């Protein structure tokens, strides 16, 4: 499944990194501890977090992740948006909580 497909199905807003919407999704990871994501996330995953710091994009890029979903309508920092556009890794935004958006994404990726 591509990033563009989950946007429609989960009602996400594209904040930045629109050039990366064709990225293929291999799964997802949920964590707000950046060192944990650095150690445990995998290539192609979508990362669900409430952290808006620019280091989020550095780690997403390091791990070559497919996209980042920010929960609860949290706003990304200016630098975070800049890096998202530069790395072409989309930042997507949801008004839902982490629990809700993770549940929906899990169901979608597992065809339930």
């Amino acid at each position: 499944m591509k990033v563009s497909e989950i946007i429609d199905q989960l009602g996400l807003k594209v904040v930045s990194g629109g050039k990366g919407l064709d990225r293929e999704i291999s799964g997802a990871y949920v964590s707000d501890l950046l060192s944990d994501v650095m150690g445990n996330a995998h290539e192609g995953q979508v990362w669900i977090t409430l952290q808006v710091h620019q280091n989020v994009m550095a780690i997403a890029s390091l791990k070559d992740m497919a996209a980042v979903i920010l929960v609860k309508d949290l706003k990304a920092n200016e630098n975070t948006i800049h890096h998202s556009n530069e790395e072409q890794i989309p930042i997507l935004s949801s008004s839902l909580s982490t629990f809700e958006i993770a549940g929906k994404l899990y169901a979608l990726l597992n065809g339930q």
Partner: protein
Amino acid sequence: MMRKFRADLHLHTVLSPCADLAMSPDQILTIARQKQLDIIAITDHNSTKQCKVIREMAADHGIVVLNGCEVNSREEVHSLCLFENDHSRAEFQAFIDQYLPNIPNRPDYFGYQVVVDRENMILEEIPWYLGNGLQVSLEEIADYTHRLNGIFIPAHIDRPINSLFSQLGFLPKELKIDALQISKQASEMSIRKMFDIHSDITLIKASDAHYLEDIGTACSVFELVNPTFEEIRWALHRQHGRSVKIET
């Protein structure tokens, strides 16, 4: 002439919810003198309100006290913010008051948060839980501290919680720091290697004392002419012949 000054720049008082109620101004100064400390910083969680009385009392003890606090950012990174005078301290206190969430403290869970005077009489009990993250980013806290001519030092960077590296993975390029503080048990060499910290960045050690017996158990030694705020900053940046080393 350059002299050595022993410093413990991370101490809590009765005001911190998690600190012992024995951490009163007079006791802290008594122990600091016993431990032969020349410079201490008062760094309660998200509050500077206990600094003034300790600073005034310290004159009798011959100890230099820096006004400060241990601020928790939106990313839940703890940092030491130190200020030269009561004016900048008060300005920073207003900044904290603006961004600390109004979540009532539960003393039975978190401990009491009281401001006391010279005689240990309670002047004020802080109603909001001081351990929370301020609703403002780490970079903004660093920038505001520097705008007030303060010193900004991310705290206990080697700890697995509430540290720069646990929360943000690595040192953000834009973050302006004066030094980094490592914990009592940490070794400077292994921490530099583990987190890839450039040799230009000064590391200091401090006790993060929550109990009287912890005061002065981890120190840094400054080489200064006089123990002024400006010289301490020079030492952290290795300027004008001033320097600082972790005491081994």
